[in-house]
């Protein structure tokens, strides 16, 4: 072998050949790579479709897709599931590529607005005009999350999850304080709870997103929903609204008073370490989404049955303009349809959305998990005090504010996380926070 190749080398002007070969092979490989990028979307004349969802909603999506596929063997749905953060990155790179799934999972808000602006989502308004029996069942404030510029682009597909204040009744009883209904009562309870050897409020600051629940509720209580609407509408200096400054001043007061459990910036809410503090009786309160409820039984199965679980709305702020019945949180997640889908694919997707999503089996699976489907008149079917109490809060709420991080554009949202970190560890003043956030307006 070596002998032959050495002989061959004697006869050839090898450098030249090597160069030519390198060029040829490189070109060929790059060409193949490019071709692969452009032609992955083969055979789309049938109505078979793909869907990408999150692992969190997999227990909800999987059985309904199986049911749909059984009834429609010729137009099957293939569903794939990803962790929430992985999904956010993955869909962002795929949404404008041939690999985009027909059914796109979305949280609505600023990201959906960007997709709409780039013409990447199908306008479902004409498709839904003769589906009123379906659309009229959806709670309007939740369905509104899938609407952009008066047109419907997405349909709610999972439970409504407002953010509420959880209490450990056992701790409150030992300390001898009642559930705080106003901010002043909350501030007054902090030193008493601390003196009794408990942490007043658990907070999962290591995950960053629990911080935003405090600012979004306080701003709403102080200034009403218009304040954040001005921010979303890119009004100049909207972050400098007195309500934002006051809310952030109150947050820093609470931090300074030792309201949050020590080391809160290292506590991860993604692993329910904040919830554990409240459930195990180390902390008296926790501000979290309704989704945290499912984790309580995993930490202490008898927590609710032994009467320790208390919950209520975010405290009212005396003199505030906002209605203290307003809620904030995640109205729902949504299914949108890619604008790149063929008519046949869109038809399959619509068929699934309007006939299988929120049918009896689907709704029952949500209720059985102790959650609240975003459907009108669902109250009597709900089970347990928690779901019923939550449903009352949702029904009576004049406004349901979508979590700010989802509503803001990605650039503003990224800066928001950093600024919240700095606000909670007192590295910026409320005025500096507003100045820094004002720079993200119109971005």
């Amino acid at each position, binding site marked *: 072998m070596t002998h032959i190749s050495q002989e061959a080398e004697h006869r050839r002007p090898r450098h030249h050949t090597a160069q030519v070969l390198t060029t040829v092979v490189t070109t060929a490989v790059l060409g193949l790579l490019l071709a692969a990028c452009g032609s992955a979307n083969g055979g789309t004349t049938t109505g078979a479709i793909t869907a990408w969802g999150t692992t969190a909603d997999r227990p909800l999506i999987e059985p309904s897709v199986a049911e749909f596929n059984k009834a429609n063997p010729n137009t099957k749905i293939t569903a794939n599931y990803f962790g929430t953060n992985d999904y956010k990155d993955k869909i962002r790179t795929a949404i404008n590529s041939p690999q985009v799934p027909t059914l796109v999972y979305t949280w609505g808000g600023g990201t959906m607005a960007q997709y709409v602006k*780039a013409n990447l989502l199908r306008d479902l308004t004409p498709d839904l005009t003769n589906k009123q029996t379906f659309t009229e069942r959806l709670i309007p404030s939740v369905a509104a999350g899938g609407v952009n510029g008066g047109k419907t682009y997405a349909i709610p597909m999972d439970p409504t999850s407002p953010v509420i204040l959880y209490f450990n009744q056992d701790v409150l009883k030992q300390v001898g304080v009642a559930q705080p209904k106003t901010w002043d009562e909350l501030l007054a309870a902090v030193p008493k709870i601390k003196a009794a050897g408990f942490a007043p409020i658990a907070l999962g600051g290591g995950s960053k997103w629990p911080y935003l629940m405090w600012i979004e509720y306080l701003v709403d209580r102080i200034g009403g929903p218009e304040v954040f609407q001005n921010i979303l509408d890119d009004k100049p200096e909207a972050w400098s609204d007195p309500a934002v400054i006051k809310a952030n001043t109150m947050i820093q007061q609470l931090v300074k008073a030792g309201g949050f459990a020590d080391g809160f910036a290292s506590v991860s809410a993604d*692993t329910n370490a904040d919830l554990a503090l409240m459930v195990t009786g180390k902390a008296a309160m926790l501000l979290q989404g309704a989704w945290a409820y499912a984790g309580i039984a995993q930490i202490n199965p008898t927590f609710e049955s032994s009467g320790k679980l208390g919950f209520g709305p975010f405290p009212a702020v005396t003199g505030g303009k906002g209605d203290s019945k307003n809620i904030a949180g995640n109205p729902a997640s949504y299914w949108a349809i890619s604008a790149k889908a063929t008519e046949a694919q869109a038809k399959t997707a619509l068929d699934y959305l309007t006939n299988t999503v929120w049918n009896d089996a689907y709704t029952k699976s949500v209720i059985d998990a102790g959650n609240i489907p975003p459907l009108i008149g669902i109250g009597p079917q709900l089970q347990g005090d928690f779901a019923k109490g939550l449903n009352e809060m949702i029904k009576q709420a004049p406004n349901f504010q979508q979590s700010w991080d989802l509503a803001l554009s990605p650039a503003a949202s990224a800066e928001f996380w950093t600024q919240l970190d700095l606000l909670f560890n007192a590295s910026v003043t409320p005025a500096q926070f507003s100045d820094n956030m004002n720079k993200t307006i119109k971005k």
Partner: protein
Amino acid sequence: MSTRNGGAIAHLSAPSTWLVVPALIFFLGFAIVPLLIALGLSFTSWDGLTAPVFNGITNWINQVSDPVTYNALWLSLQVIVFSWIVQTPLSLLLGVFTAGRHRYRAVLAALYFLPLILSSAAIGIAYKALLDPNYGLGKAFNLPILSQDWLGNPALVLYVVIFVIAWQFIPFHSLLYQAGARQIPASLYEAAQLDGAGRVKQFFYITVPQLKNTIIASSTLMVVGSLTYFDIVYILTQGGPGYATRLLPLDMYLTGFSASDLGGASVLAVILVVIGLLLAAGLTKFSGFNRMSSQQDGA
């Protein structure tokens, strides 16, 4: 090149140039071409969804005038320097220790090298749990001093990150030093022993000079590696609290994928590549590594 024998002799001993072709294709396809694309994108405004729009040097002006960029550079520099200061002596000692041919050393070596087989993500998640102020190390050992706000205190967090990076990479560098130390001829130590040199003297006058090339190789990997270090930091802190651990690669990722400013992120990517190349070239040049002179002249 050309000799009296027609230019063939020189080639007979060296491997054929053709062998470089597959590597070259991959290098072009996965390093040079993306680099050129990033350079191009750095002059555009691109959110990853719509088509990139040429916007001249706007991104460059934005990034260069942004204090966050300098903070990221400064943090990366600290990580490089402290990582080297922490990791080099420890890996050198561990490597030399495990190079000895005793059974107990082999057992210990196997334990020391354990972090090497763990993925960065696993290490990050494990440390996040260990550093939880309520349910982590402090509770396990019942030592309140271990219940610090490790990942939330801006004054502590950078050192915590440097520690975790060291925990992950010391085994790798120890392995390099172990291999290097085993190459040192025993005759050198025998001669030194006869002359009455003790263990400490042997270490400083034989082992360290003999390991010169290993030290350079390990340092280059450490410095360039620290510059591009990303995964553990992202899992532990996401660059926070605030900007406290927003290293240059993390700044690039957050700018590009969280804030969807891929033009700005491309500027940071180009800066990162230039600094990395300068550092690697500088280290090789000043250490004389490319001369590859033998350390055993006269041995």
